[in-house]
């Protein structure tokens, strides 16, 4: 897409503190600032719903928005994770039905986004996920049972964010984007080349913190990739009630950053776009906004009843675009995947499912004193008092039940 002339105000008096990133980008890619910021005319899409590689001219790429096809190994690894991710989603939903977990916001249908979000990052990078991104967190290497702790109800978070460089799965919408910005800023100040991927949903883009996070990242010129999984619903509320912009990627323009949209059920395109975004960010492009067009195939969580607000036919339409099947066809057609390979991957997925079943059917005893242990690094006399009160209660309970038993 070409815009005929420079849109920048002729009389903008102040200079960007970070050098004019837009001018640089425009120079680098030989396009206008607007063309750099606006997403390409069409979303980036490489493998179609039938698993066929699209002709290069139809992939949505254009000058300044060029995305080479990812390598075969990366794609095979991604496929494996897709299969595992799907299995995990469905296993977890089953565990909820069996009462082993309290709640699970499934990413069924969004596994391509989940997998690509994790695979595009290096070890030193950070990820800030939401409640729906358990599969991304696992794909990043966190123990699946630990990831599910929050949904089992033992504790709020089950893994160490510092060890894995993964933020806790965040519920208050878009608040985590600012944490991502802070992590990136700290790394930048120390001269580290960390890239941070910050995730949110379509609905979440309406929150004020979304705005503040994107703007802070842009003004401080930080290597943050804002990755929006546009699954078309925020619980019951369809996208049209969140935004009337041509796309969520268009929001990049308001911050002077680049936006792009990508087929969120096409892991090939996702990897192409996110890999490049990570590379650009690491090289100093500043933040980028990537919108993945996908679909929430199931209800918001098990507690939700999606028949109240959407047609089955809409869901069915998206079933045909399934990210796992699509990739299987593509890899099989390309001769990269055969029955053996498929079997090996399925086995791996089963192993993770078993791990989850086993891990989550254990009834881990909870320690009531944990209530007080972690509130502060240095506790307070008040909490000591309250902890003693509870201990006393429990001791008396125990004593009276021993007494009862002794009768």
């Amino acid at each position, binding site marked *: 897409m070409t815009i005929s002339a420079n849109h920048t105000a002729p009389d903008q008096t102040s200079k960007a503190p970070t050098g004019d990133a837009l001018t640089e980008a425009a120079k680098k890619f030989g396009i206008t600032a607007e063309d750099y910021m606006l997403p390409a005319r069409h979303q980036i899409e490489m493998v179609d719903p039938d698993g066929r590689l699209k002709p290069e001219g139809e992939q949505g790429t254009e000058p300044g928005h060029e995305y080479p096809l990812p390598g075969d190994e990366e794609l095979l690894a991604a496929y494996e994770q897709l299969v595992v991710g799907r299995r995990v989603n469905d296993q977890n939903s089953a565990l909820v039905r069996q009462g082993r977990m309290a709640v699970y916001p499934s990413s069924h249908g969004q596994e391509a986004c989940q997998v690509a979000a994790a695979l595009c990052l290096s070890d030193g990078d950070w990820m800030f996920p939401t409640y729906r991104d358990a599969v991304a967190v696992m794909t990043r290497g966190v123990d699946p049972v630990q990831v599910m702790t*929050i949904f089992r109800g033992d504790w709020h978070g089950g893994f160490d964010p510092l060890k894995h460089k993964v933020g806790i799965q965040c519920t208050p919408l878009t608040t985590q984007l600012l944490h991502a910005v802070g992590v990136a800023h700290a790394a930048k100040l120390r001269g580290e080349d960390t890239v941070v991927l910050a995730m949110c949903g379509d609905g979440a883009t309406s929150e004020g913190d979304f705005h503040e996070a994107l703007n802070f990242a842009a003004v401080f010129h930080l290597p943050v990739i804002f990755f929006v999984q546009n699954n078309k619903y925020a619980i019951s509320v369809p996208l049209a009630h969140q935004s009337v912009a041509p796309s969520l990627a268009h929001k990049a323009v308001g911050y002077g950053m680049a936006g792009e949209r990508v087929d969120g059920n096409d892991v090939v395109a996702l990897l192409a776009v996110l890999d490049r975004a990570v590379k650009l960010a690491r090289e100093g492009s500043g933040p980028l906004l990537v919108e993945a067009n996908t679909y929430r195939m199931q209800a918001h969580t098990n507690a939700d009843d999606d028949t109240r607000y959407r047609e089955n036919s809409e869901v069915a339409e998206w079933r045909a675009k399934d990210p796992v099947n699509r990739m299987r066809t593509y890899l099989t057609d390309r001769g990269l995947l055969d029955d053996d390979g498929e079997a090996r991957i399925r086995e791996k997925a089963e192993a993770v499912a078993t791990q989850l079943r086993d891990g989550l059917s254990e009834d881990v005893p909870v320690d009531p004193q944990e*209530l007080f242990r972690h509130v502060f690094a240095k506790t307070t006399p008040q909490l000591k008092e*309250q902890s003693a009160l509870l201990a006393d209660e429990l001791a008396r309970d125990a004593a009276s039940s021993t007494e009862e038993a002794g009768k």
Partner: protein
Amino acid sequence: MSPTITTSSEANGNVSAATARAAASAAASAEAAGPQPVTLAKALNTALADAMHADSSVLVFGEDVGTLGGVFRITDGLTATFGEQRCFDTPLAESGIVGMAVGMAINGMRPVIEMQFDAFAYPAFEQIISHVAKMHNRTKGAVKLPLVIRVPYGGGIGGVEHHCDSSESYYAHTAGLKVFTPATVADGYRMLREAIDSDDPVVFMEPKKLYWSKDLVDLGELRSAHSAAAAAGRSSEGRAAVARPGTDATLIAYGPSVPTALAAAEAAALEGRSLEVIDVRTIVPFDDATVCESVRKTGRAVVIAEAHGFASVSSEIVARVQERCFHYLAAPIRRVTGFDIPYPAPKLEKYYLPGVDRILDAVDDLQWEN
């Protein structure tokens, strides 16, 4: 049906709205006569519908309140009945919801907005504190702000973090807000109607663990009683209830803690102790008279609330009761509240919540030997 929208007759003195009494009684006729088992959720839902029937300037909006009917179904059916103009979903932004409601109230509407969960009202804090609470005052009453902010609150439902906060103290501490919280199904109906009728902004705290609790109530009778009271200019704002009479000590509770207090009183009765239970009902304004009358009679008191105790509504109740009833007290007033910790994960919440045993322990502690 989708009546023409006019401006509230009460607020800001614009065009008068026709009260659709006929419509309301038509809705009533669909209901079974006489007392029926009704949930708090249903009572609230009915109150909203009746208020919308009665005044076309009453609007309902928030996240998922339209087609879905709210995640707790409190707004169920309102869009179908009143149309998308009267009950609708907003973009997902709580400050936006409250801020837009402020503007609508300025311009003649009576918005009733839903915050999906307690902790998700925090993004709207600035709008609530700096505008909702202050608009009437700063304009010397020129602008009324008849706005109801509904907040499902509290724990005991096995919710994950941020879904179980007891946030009433933040609002109660904010001058310019009224804070209501019903504990019974009938109060749910009556108090929500009164909140909507009020020309002052009301933060309406709904104890979410009581949504599915049922009482035997006659909704038709509640509706008539409300109409009669409203016509006579009567309101029970600022009136606590004696939920259970007693003589030995007073349990002061509100919202989700009222049933627990009643259960404790029941248990104490078996041990021969007669506890009076006060249901505060409207935290702001506070009913000093009813509370103090009880404490002066019993000479002993325990205040019960789910929220962290520190600098809370329960601190306030203790402080004001000791100020007013000092020489009647045989023992210090005790508090049974949530601990001063973030609300715990589902498997641990039972250790956090003020339960019957903890209340009875506190009662035992009231220096009976004196």
